[in-house]
């Protein structure tokens, strides 16, 4: 088989074997509807309760503050629309940032069309929001601040505690999209002062189509999905029992040997950054040098375009991305890279390599060896390159 090096862990992750093993019994042995009172149903109910305890513990929440959803996007939509519609009598102003995931941005844009007002905070060259600006943006009718924990493209980690403090001091709800942060950064929702937080299973070796929303006790929001009495009547739909059980197992594994795991990712990341910087000219690291996700590497590679780079890398078995995988349906340059001030060319020439638990030293070396000649080949084709190199 062709060598395959997967370096797109921020897009999605393979299921860990332990996760699959935990899920399997719930497909056809213990498959009952958790709402049913007979034995089959109670087995499923217990499995969900147990999963909820595990997820809650991993972020220091109470079990009844965890609500399972169909993924990170649903969690983001629920949090933002739920707060907006549930508090519109108090005000119609929302604050977010320009570098949020589309699940937040497009939800906010939708709400603007429906009569809400949204302030999109800009970020600095590293992708950090400015706390002073945030303070100044808060109005008497502000009902929600939604700022992501860590960015999916450039990996930048926001000062969440400080943001939460500002929100709390003004009695404004604070939501954070922690889809990328969960499992990669220790999160204590109580200590940080978070009101709502979105997480997703498939970014931490759990199944796609399962996520959760942490809702602090007492926070008032509308439902997104009405119907049956599941999730304490706040999110309807027959529970995805295998998905939920798999999510909890993945969260448990992520929080075992947490520090070691982070150290491992960070060292591979730094090795990759150093290796590529050394071997390739005219490249720039995007995002913050230290306040960044342990597995995130994002470079702008001058004079070449992302898609052709991805295709060339795919030919040698390297899977990675240029901009967010979730947004690659669009060919526009990444809004995140534009927001940190890159030119269109640099944004287009960005390469995101994200490292995960199955990444090895050899994988990193393979990339450090394979990438430079590919870059060189593409640059030779580029009309932008000839000028630099003094071509005719």
């Amino acid at each position: 088989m062709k060598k395959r090096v997967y370096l797109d862990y921020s897009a999605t992750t393979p299921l860990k074997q332990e996760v699959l093993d935990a899920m399997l019994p719930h497909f056809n042995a213990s498959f009952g509807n958790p709402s049913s009172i007979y034995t089959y149903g109670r087995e499923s109910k217990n499995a969900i309760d147990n999963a909820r305890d595990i997820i809650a513990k991993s972020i220091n929440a109470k079990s009844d503050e965890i609500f399972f959803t169909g993924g990170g996007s649903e969690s983001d939509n629920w949090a933002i629309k739920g707060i907006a519609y549930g508090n519109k009598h108090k005000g119609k102003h929302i604050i977010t940032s320009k570098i949020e995931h589309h699940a937040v941005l497009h939800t906010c844009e939708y709400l603007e069309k429906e009569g809400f007002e949204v302030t999109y905070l800009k970020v600095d060259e590293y992708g950090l929001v400015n706390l002073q600006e945030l303070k100044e943006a808060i109005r008497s009718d502000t009902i929600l601040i939604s700022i992501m924990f860590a960015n999916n493209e450039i990996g930048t980690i926001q000062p969440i505690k400080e943001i939460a403090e500002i929100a709390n001091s003004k009695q404004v709800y604070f939501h954070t999209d922690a889809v990328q942060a969960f499992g990669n950064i220790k999160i204590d929702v109580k200590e940080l002062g978070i009101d709502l937080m979105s997480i997703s299973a498939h970014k931490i070796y759990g199944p796609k189509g399962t996520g959760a929303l942490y809702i602090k006790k007492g926070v008032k929001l509308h439902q997104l999905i009405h119907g049956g009495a599941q999730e304490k009547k706040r999110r309807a739909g027959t529970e995805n029992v295998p998905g939920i059980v798999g999510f909890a197992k993945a969260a448990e594994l992520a929080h075992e040997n947490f520090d070691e795991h982070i150290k491992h990712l960070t060292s591979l990341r730094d090795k990759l950054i150093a290796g590529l910087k050394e071997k390739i000219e005219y490249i720039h690291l995007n995002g913050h040098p230290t306040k960044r996700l342990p597995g995130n590497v994002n470079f702008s590679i001058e004079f070449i375009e992302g898609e052709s780079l991805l295709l060339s890398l795919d030919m040698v078995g390297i899977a990675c991305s240029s901009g967010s995988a979730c947004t690659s349906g669009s060919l526009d340059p990444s809004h995140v890279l534009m927001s940190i001030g890159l030119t269109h060319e640099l944004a287009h020439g960005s390469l995101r390599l994200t490292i995960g638990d199955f990444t090895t030293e050899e994988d990193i070396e393979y990339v450090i060896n394979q990438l430079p000649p590919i870059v060189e080949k593409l640059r030779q084709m580029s009309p932008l390159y000839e000028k630099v190199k003094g071509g005719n």
Partner: protein
Amino acid sequence: MYSDKVMEHFMNPRNVGEIENPDAVGQVGNPKCGDIMKMYLRIENDVITDVKFKTFGCGSAIATSSMATEMIKGKTVQEALNLSNKAVAEALDGLPPVKMHCSVLAEQAVKSAIYDYAKKNNKQYEGLEGFDPNEEHDHHHHGDEE
């Protein structure tokens, strides 16, 4: 959902049935919401010497009826009146929160039977003041507890 003790009483309820020519009968519940409990007492010298019940209701209603009859048998009328639904629930190793109201039905059935006895015999008991057996025990309003 239910403790083993609840299930055990549900599957093998004690004191099911009727007493012929009882000294007291009480029936509570709201037939509209589906649950009815009927309690028969034999009382000698102010002591409950026999008790039987019939219940149209959920598992927890049947188990609490059964447990309540066990708990009042051999007790004085006054002691029986002091039986609380919490005590019945505890004796069953607890009930799920949405099912606590079923144990209220058992407490009310005992009270209602003793009310009948007091009325027939012109007696006064502490704890019966203000008790109205015909009041609708609207115990089904638990849908939005959470």
